[in-house]
């Protein structure tokens, strides 16, 4: 029998501290849908999603009822579409089929309108990437990602340059909705193949036919646990570890049960602290609980490094297989503490960039002025990608150049995507660097200093 304290701890985590499982993401391989005809490929893709993921929402809701813990999102990730449509050139037909299937099965998002071009782009991959703005502006549920670098291949700067214009075009096409298409688009270095989180989820080429990956959450739980800690940072790290263990165990239980009921493989648990805009569900507030006046203050990078490491150490024993992005997320628009600090001007893009060197995953959900040039957007991407490549970790950029808005304005995306203060950007011109193109060679992996 459990003690009353244990039972109440679990109940309070849900009712007062926003404990939830952020997402069950069902990865679906689309390799068996490849044909040389665009419409036939789209039809096969639609059928496969309906057949494989048709019961995902019902299964997720049933598990949530039984364990008494909300499962916020039910999502699908698919094989990068650029690989599925290279023969038929049917990417626009396929994205419409994906969006229709996603709406019919009632999932929140579907990820995988993606291309992996970390070393070079084929002519078709360039055409595919150029289609992303129209694809995202004309659909609701589908998310897109492009891997432009790896630690082994270096940085494909031609792709980085192209992505600057893709973000700007996507922003323009959804200018009546605060450029929301950019919130469904992410650029990666060292993209992972089993990520359950959006916008960057896709199912890699080395994966099963269908597989469940789960992302956990719980910044509020960690924050409340730390309110009791009066000791030094060793004790702080211990409490974070213990809390992360409990949170991750919930994710592992859900992953195993969802895989069993769906009759698919159980993939990974992503050891994540994913915030939402709700009060009491903020990663920034954890850092402030540790002792910073505001996130963004000097000391933020150190505190975040400790938090991120302790989350992983606590979570790793709690799950059979760890994967995805695994770490604390710092999306500005989705975190009440980050929003407040950005509004005050304490949290800057430069500080956020430093923070991403020690946590998951990158410059995320950052609104910037709409008149920032595409070269500057490319340069922001290049800087962030370089951090991932040199440190052999995943980094990402999801910036929103909000059409018609300037620094200090607010962009509103709604729901889990939240709202973001438009942050000022360094306007010094990097155009010559960006237009050189080519590839930044892979870094040395020894003599680390």
């Amino acid at each position: 029998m459990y003690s009353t304290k244990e039972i109440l701890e679990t109940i309070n985590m849900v009712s007062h501290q926003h404990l939830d499982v952020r997402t069950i993401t069902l990865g679906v391989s689309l390799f068996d849908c490849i044909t040389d005809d665009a419409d036939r490929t789209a039809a096969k893709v639609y059928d496969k999603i309906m057949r494989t993921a048709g019961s995902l929402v019902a299964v997720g809701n049933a598990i949530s009822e039984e364990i008494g813990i909300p499962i916020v999102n039910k999502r699908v990730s698919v094989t990068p579409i650029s690989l599925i449509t290279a023969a038929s050139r049917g990417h626009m037909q396929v994205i419409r089929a994906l969006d229709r299937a996603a709406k019919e099965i009632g999932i929140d998002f579907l990820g995988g309108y993606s291309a992996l071009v970390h070393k070079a782009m084929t002519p078709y991959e360039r055409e595919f990437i150029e289609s992303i703005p129209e694809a995202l502006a004309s659909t609701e549920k589908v998310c897109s990602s492009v891997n432009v670098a790896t630690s082994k291949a270096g940085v494909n700067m031609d792709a980085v340059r192209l992505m600057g214009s893709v973000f700007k075009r996507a922003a323009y096409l959804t200018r009546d909705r605060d450029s929301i298409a950019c919130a469904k688009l992410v650029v990666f270095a060292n993209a992972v193949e089993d990520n359950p989180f959006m916008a960057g989820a896709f199912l890699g080429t080395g994966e099963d036919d269908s597989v469940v990956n789960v992302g956990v959450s719980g910044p509020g739980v960690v924050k409340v646990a730390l309110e009791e800690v009066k000791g030094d940072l060793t004790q702080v790290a211990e409490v974070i570890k213990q809390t992360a263990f409990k949170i991750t165990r919930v994710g592992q239980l859900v992953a195993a049960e969802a895989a069993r009921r769906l009759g698919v493989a159980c993939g990974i648990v992503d050891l994540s602290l994913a915030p939402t805009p709700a009060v009491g569900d903020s990663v920034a507030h954890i850092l402030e609980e540790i002792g910073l006046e505001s996130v963004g203050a000097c000391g933020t990078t150190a505190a975040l490094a400790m938090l991120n490491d302790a989350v992983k150490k606590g979570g790793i024993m709690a799950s059979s297989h760890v994967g995805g992005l695994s770490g604390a997320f710092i999306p500005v628009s989705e975190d009440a503490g980050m929003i407040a600090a950005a509004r005050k001007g304490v949290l800057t893009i430069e500080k956020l960039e430093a923070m991403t060197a020690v946590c998951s995953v990158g410059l995320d959900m950052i609104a910037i002025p709409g008149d920032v040039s595409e070269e500057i957007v490319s340069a922001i991407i290049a800087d962030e990608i370089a951090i991932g490549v040199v440190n052999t970790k995943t980094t990402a950029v999801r910036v929103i150049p909000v059409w018609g808005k300037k620094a200090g304005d607010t962009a509103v995306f709604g729901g889990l995507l939240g709202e973001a203060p438009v942050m000022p950007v360094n306007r010094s011109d990097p155009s010559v660097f960006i237009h050189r193109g080519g590839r930044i060679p892979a870094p040395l992996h020894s003599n680390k200093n």
Partner: protein
Amino acid sequence: MKAIVSVLGKDKKGIIARVSGALYDMDVNVEDLSQTILQDFFTMIMAVETGENSPKFDVIKQNLRELGDKIGVQINIQIKDIFDAMHRIDTK
């Protein structure tokens, strides 16, 4: 199916009787029970197992929720596995 029923709220007469009665009506067996009252705040934890003639889990949950609304306490039921997962290293 093994589950944990938790009852939280202001103490009053007949809570145990009414909750046990509802469980009995749904063919749910009470295997263990503990209760505490702290400053008028009533907390009861019951370890239960559903029977062959029990309704589906979501129906049991809904019935208990409605009973809770009627007597002014919060009644919840969660499968035992979630507490194993969070509070026991060895979950088998």
